[in-house]
């Protein structure tokens, strides 16, 4: 299994500002994902972070609001831009644990501890 860390673990931010969340994995992985969990809700996928190329965003999420970087196989960042109180959520990154040719479509996903964001 992969060990995943996220920074910061929590933050309180003012509206109109931006926050960058980091996700670090202890091994190389092909697929990294970013999810949002609004208060009392389930998880919704924001985007897939692709190494060496632009992220793939889900319906309802755009790059200008949630820019993502994936400079290598162990690291990714998600920025929440121009924040409003509606962005208050837990943001989680996940990985599917394997890199390269060993991957199938049957991989367990492992989640980071999450970043709890409150926007005032």
């Amino acid at each position, binding site marked *: *299994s992969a060990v995943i860390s996220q920074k910061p673990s929590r933050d309180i931010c003012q509206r109109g500002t931006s926050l960058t969340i980091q996700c670090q994995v202890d091994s190389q992985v092909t*697929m990294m*994902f970013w999810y949002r*969990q609004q208060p009392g809700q*389930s*998880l*919704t*996928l924001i985007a*897939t972070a692709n190494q060496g190329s632009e992220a793939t965003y*889900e*319906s309802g999420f755009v790059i200008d609001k949630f820019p993502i970087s994936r400079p290598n196989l162990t690291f990714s960042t998600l920025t929440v831009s121009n924040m409003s109180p509606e962005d208050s959520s*837990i943001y*989680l990154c*996940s990985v*599917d644990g394997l890199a390269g040719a060993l991957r199938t*479509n*049957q*991989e*367990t*996903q*492992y*989640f*980071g*501890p*999450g970043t*709890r964001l409150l926007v005032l």
Partner: protein
Amino acid sequence: SQQGEEDPQALSIQEGENATMNCSYKTSINNLQWYRQNSGRGLVHLILIRSNEREKHSGRLRVTLDTSKKSSSLLITASRAADTASYFCATDEHPGGGNKLTFGTGTQLKVEL
């Protein structure tokens, strides 16, 4: 993508009892996974069942999958207070899921002493 439904939304039982949670989903899948989340923290992976499997066990957990009904159930036997958490099912859609997960609405389980 459409979220799956889980029921019940909330479940309260006594320690030692069994807890059953159900999950329904909308599309064909590669696999279905169950996760536990304690108090808004990160998710802990519990079990993965592939689309060609019907039942799987792991310790006190038993998962069933019925692809004809597009449903799954999670049974926790001999529950403990430490099992108190939210439980989510998540599906990897087929084809083209790319290991992106679609989460159910979740069941809040409370196990009382």
